[in-house]
Structure formats: C-alpha cells, structure tokens
C-alpha cells in the first residue's frame, strides 16, 4: 500500500519528526515556491505551510482545497494566525511548535476530512458533534459504540468476553446536593482512578477496556488473553473490592469525606460467548443489559441489609452529631454550629444515605426524632455565649405529632433549617405550624436557597431569619460571574428583609474572598472549619480563654 505523504515547505526539524510519529506517513519537503505545484502529486494527504507570504499562502490553500487536501499552517505571529483562520484552513499551530503538537494538528486536520467549500460548515459542525460522540468529554473514556468496534476482533478471536457493569449509586445525589460541576469533577476523579487502577491490575495482561455511559455508570470489557482462563467470580469480587477502596480513597483525598461517604459501587457481571449466527453488537448489548441487571440485584440486597442496619441503629440510638461551625465573615468568629447527624454504623455514616434508607423503610420521622434529640444535647455541651444551634428539619417533620414547639427547652438558641428542595404540599397549614414555633422564640433558616429555578418569592414567603445559599452557587463562585450576580441579588434581598445570608460549602480562600466581597454575612465550610464531634470545640484552638 502506498504511503500518505505530508508535504511541507518547512525547514523546522520538528515537522519531520512529527511525521515520524504518524503511522504510515512519509515526509516530503519542497521549496516554498514549489509547494503549490507539488500538491497535485498522488498520495499527498496533508500540507503543512509555514510561508509568511500571504499570496503564496492563499495559492497553496486554494490549490489544496481544490484537491480536497487539508492544510495546516505554522504561524509565526498573530497576523499569520489571523490570515490562516480567514482562509479557513483546517488547523494551525504557533511556530515554533514541538513535534507532538504538529502531529496532533495533522491528525486532527486529516480526521476532519477533505474540505468541500459548500459543505464545509456543515461538515465541521458535524465533526464537533461527532468527536463528542466518540469520547466522553469529562472522563476522556471512549463511548460504547467505539468500544464495541475496538473489541470486535479480539472478541471473535478469543470467543468470550466478560462484561462488568459498574454502577456508581449515589452520584446523582452528589449532583442534587452540590450541583453538576461537582459531579463532573468527581466523575473525572473516578475515571482517572479507574484508569490508574487498571494499569496496575493483574487483569491488564489480558485486554480490559472501559467505557462510560454518560450517566454515572462505567462498563468494563474484559477479553481474556489467549490461553488464559477468564476471570472467575472470586477474581472479580476481589478486583471490585480493591477498586472500591482505590476509587474511594481518591475521591476522599480530592473531594472530602462527605462526598466519599456517598460513594458506592455495585458491580454486575455477565459472560458473553461469541456466536457467529448472532450479530456481535447484539451479543454485547445483551451482555451489558444482563450485567446491569445483576448490579441492580446486588444493590437491592445491599439495600435490604441497610434497612436492617437502620433498625438496629434506631433501637440503640446509634447516631452521633458532628458540629460544623458557622462563622462571621468579617471577623471569622464562631456564630453558631450546624448539627449534622451521622450514623455510627459505617454503612450509614452519610446522613443522605441514612435518610434515603429511612424513606424506603418508612422510618423518617423516627430517625428525625432521634437526630433532633441528639442534636439538642449540643445546646448544653457545645454552645458558648450567644452561639446558636442550627438543626435540619424537613418540612414533612412538621406533620409529625411528636415534633412540637415545646419539645425543645431553649428555643431562643435554636435555628430551624428548612430545605427549599422539598415541596411543601399544604402551605397554609405549614405556615401555621411555623408561626407557632416562631412565637416560642425559634428562628428559621431557608436551606439550599437558590437551588431551584424559583426565585426569591418562595423564600420571602417563609420570612426567614437566615438564608443559606445552595452549595452549587458557592462552588467556584470566584470564577463565575453569574453566580456572583445571583449571590449579590440574594444579599441585597436579605438586607432589605432583615435577614442574614450564610454561604455554605466554602472550600477555598478564593471562594471565601469572593463571598466576603459580595457582603455575605456568615460563612460555613472546610476552608475555615471541618465538622467535628470532639469534646473540645474548635474555637479553643484559635481563641484562648
């Protein structure tokens, strides 16, 4: 087969080196003045031009495009770059560039196909769409159709394929609580950890491929090497538990323990045997479905076990409270603490998981009662001076006959946080209950404010003393001006209504400075304090008595 030729006028050695890393490509250098003429030669498949003569450049580009050959321009300066873009060349790079960059540009230009003037726009748009279809932009992993293509030959040769379906259960929860940007970051970490793990595992001797379903699940294809038995059930169980530990520790290191506590993998497995009578795609898709079902049934089993854990926890009152300081933005003094309930049992450590399980088992009120009574213990043991205790109360809890305004002895020290996420069904009745609490001296905070599309109207209805901004608004607020604008609006609204704004989830100094500048009154987040349940409150570390 004849080689593809890369034609160039460049004398830079990097261009020649770049061709060296392109498979099946040959390199041909001609003088600047001969370049246009040489394009018509057979086998020329791309042209790299570095001339700074605009007329010569135009001639080369026109000639190349007439012949359906893509052009890559090496630009010495901005003017050259502009010229190249105006001439609608396929790719450009800035001179000097290293060989890697150049070969990448050549590959991209060729991959985009030959330009046909009238269809050029449509083709390029399609190309943008196409590239996005092939690889998941977040994880960089190939999408399923790509992976099926790649495994086709291997699967035929070896005759069998093991599909592992990795279902990451609570990733949707991360998105719900922290916003899509956080989930994107967590998925990136996950994909990197999975790849790292695969490079390291014993199964890498055979072929393992990963794909990502664009939701939150990963699919592994394991094609055992010839002469090696496919992984057994035990191998896979062991592999999964190591993978779980590995990914879990990476997520904890990068995103903190709260997010790591939400993380769980369930792995389903299916064995697919090659059958020449059945279309290969169908075989693989069936295998994937079977593996996905298997992962779900494992999840079901695990759920049942957790419900049992929860019943035990309720009986033994096995819930403890972490107190997360809320500080005054200006002075960084502690203003109060949010009580965060955690399960003593490992499987119920995360409050989100615990309440999920409770909802399934119809134990929400019972769990809420336990969490409240535990949290209130902190009024005596935790609070100093005028510090307040913030406790989370679900709007549905107000319908619980056991929850009334007399349950808590010192209402003036308690702020009840009500989440904006839960829809309130019977609004007039809910307001009546709220009033009864308010009359006793309780204060209210709207939690997760701004999490939905609803604007300030729904917040105004609750007449809160505090407005807790949704974490997704704070995450990376320093670089996003739309978030800054929304928070500014909220602060103004609070100031007009005599309320205070609390920014939750402040993790970095930049975020702290941004919310401070926007006039946010109070701040809570890892940047200042981590939640703690130690007997000594964190204030002792900074303020000596």
């Amino acid at each position, binding site marked *: 087969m004849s080689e593809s030729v890369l034609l160039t006028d460049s004398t830079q050695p990097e261009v020649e080196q770049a061709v060296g890393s392109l498979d099946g490509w040959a390199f041909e250098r001609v003088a600047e003045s001969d370049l246009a003429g040489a394009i018509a030669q057979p086998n020329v498949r791309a042209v790299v031009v570095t001339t700074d003569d605009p007329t010569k450049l135009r001639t080369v580009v026109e000639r190349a495009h007439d012949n359906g050959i893509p052009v890559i321009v090496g630009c010495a300066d901005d003017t050259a770059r502009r010229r190249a873009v105006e001439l609608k060349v396929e790719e450009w790079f800035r001179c000097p560039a290293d060989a890697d960059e150049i070969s990448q540009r050549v590959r991209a230009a060729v991959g985009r196909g030959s330009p046909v003037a009238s269809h050029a726009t449509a083709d*390029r748009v399609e190309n*943008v769409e196409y*590239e*996005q279809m092939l690889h998941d932009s977040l994880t960089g992993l190939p999408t399923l159709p790509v992976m099926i293509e790649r495994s086709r030959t291997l699967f035929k040769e070896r005759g069998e394929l093991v599909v592992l379906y990795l279902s990451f259960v609570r990733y949707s929860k991360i998105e719900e609580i922290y916003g899509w940007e956080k989930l994107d970051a967590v998925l990136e970490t996950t994909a990197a950890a999975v790849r790292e793990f695969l490079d390291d595992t014993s199964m890498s001797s055979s072929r393992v491929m990963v794909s990502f379903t664009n939701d939150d699940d990963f699919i592994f294809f394991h094609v055992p090497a010839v002469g090696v038995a496919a992984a057994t059930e035990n191998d896979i169980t062991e592999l999964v538990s190591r993978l779980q530990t590995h990914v879990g520790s990476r997520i904890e290191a990068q995103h903190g323990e709260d997010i790591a506590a939400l993380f769980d993998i369930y792995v389903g497995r299916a064995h697919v045997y090659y059958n020449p009578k059945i279309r290969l795609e169908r075989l693989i898709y069936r295998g994937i479905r079977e593996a996905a079902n298997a992962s779900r049934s494992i999840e079901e089993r695990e759920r049942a076990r957790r419900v049992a854990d929860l019943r035990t926890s309720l009986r033994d009152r096995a819930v403890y409270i972490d107190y997360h300081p809320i500080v005054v933005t200006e002075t960084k003094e502690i203003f109060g603490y949010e009580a965060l309930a955690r399960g003593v049992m490992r499987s119920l450590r995360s409050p989100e998981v615990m309440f999920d399980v409770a909802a399934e088992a119809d134990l929400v009120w019972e769990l809420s009662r336990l969490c409240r009574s535990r949290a209130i213990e902190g009024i005596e043991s935790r609070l100093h001076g005028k510090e307040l205790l913030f406790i989370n109360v679900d709007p549905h809890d107000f319908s619980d006959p056991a929850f009334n305004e007399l349950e808590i002895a010192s209402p003036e020290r308690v702020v009840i946080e009500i989440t904006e996420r839960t829809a309130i069904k019977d609004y007039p009745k809910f307001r009546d209950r709220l009033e009864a609490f308010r009359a006793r001296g309780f204060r209210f905070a709207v939690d997760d404010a701004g999490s939905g599309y609803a604007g300030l109207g729904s917040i105004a209805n609750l007449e809160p003393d505090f407005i807790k901004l949704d974490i997704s608004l704070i995450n990376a607020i320093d670089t996003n*001006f*739309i978030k800054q604008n929304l928070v500014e609006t909220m602060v103004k609204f609070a100031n007009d209504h005599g309320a205070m704004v609390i920014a939750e989830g402040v993790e970095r100094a*930049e975020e702290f400075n941004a919310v401070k500048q926007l006039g946010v009154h109070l701040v809570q987040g890892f940047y200042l304090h981590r939640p703690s349940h130690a007997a000594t409150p964190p204030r002792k570390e900074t303020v000596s008595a």
Partner: protein
Amino acid sequence: MRATARDVTEADWAGEMSDERHPPILVVDDNHDNAEIIRQYLEIRGYPISVAHDGDEALSMFERVRPALVLLDVMMPGRDGWEVCRMMKQHPTLGKTVRVIMVTALDEWQDKREALQIGADDYVEKPFDLPTLATTVQRNLAMQRTPS
C-alpha cells in the same frame, strides 16, 4: 517605559500585541451590524476577533479559531446560543478552557440558573454599552490567566 496602560492604536495591534493578554475572541451574533460594532471596538483594543453569524458557523469556526473567549448572542435562528454554549463547553479539548459570555437580557433568576446549568461564565445584558462589554471581556480573560 511608563507603567500605566497605554492607548492601543491600530498600528500597535497590527504589530506585536502580547498574545497572552490579547487572545483570540469569537463574536457570535446574527445581526451583522452588532457583530461589526463589537468587532471594531474590541479590535482597536488589541484583541484578534473572528465573527460568526449563526450557531453552526460559530461551531464550525470554534476548532479553527480556538478562542479564549466567546461572546455569544442567545437569540439566533437555527441553533440558539444556549445550545452552542453547551456544545462548546463539552468540547473534549477546548471546552475546559474557553470562557463563554452570553449576550442576552437575563433579568430573571431562572434565566441565570439556566445559564449556569449550561456552563456559561458570564453575561452581558442587552442592550449593552461598549465599555461594559470591554470590562466584561477583561474580567473573564483575567480569570482565564489565573485558573483555580
């Protein structure tokens, strides 16, 4: 040399503007007059500008221009600004770094939430004045130079 910012003239720009401080910008607006006004105003300030007049053209130029920043009109025939923004932000190589400024009247809370969801970084309210536009461009480019 004076430390203050000097006035940028056409001659300066044709010569050698610092590439880092003046990276390429893609302006997308179906109204040719608007696009032209923005182009001229920003070019005089030293930014290399490319112009597209609809969503498809913007996407087709995206990989070629590799803009650091996109000024994107929301209301366009065909692919609207939201869709273009989403696709740019999902681009495997350029999506992570490009900053997208939506040109629209986002006065409602829910519009801004929508813009956040789509991945937009900032917005300019229409009708805008040119100095505001320049400030918005500058603050977004400053963000890009100091990635978090």
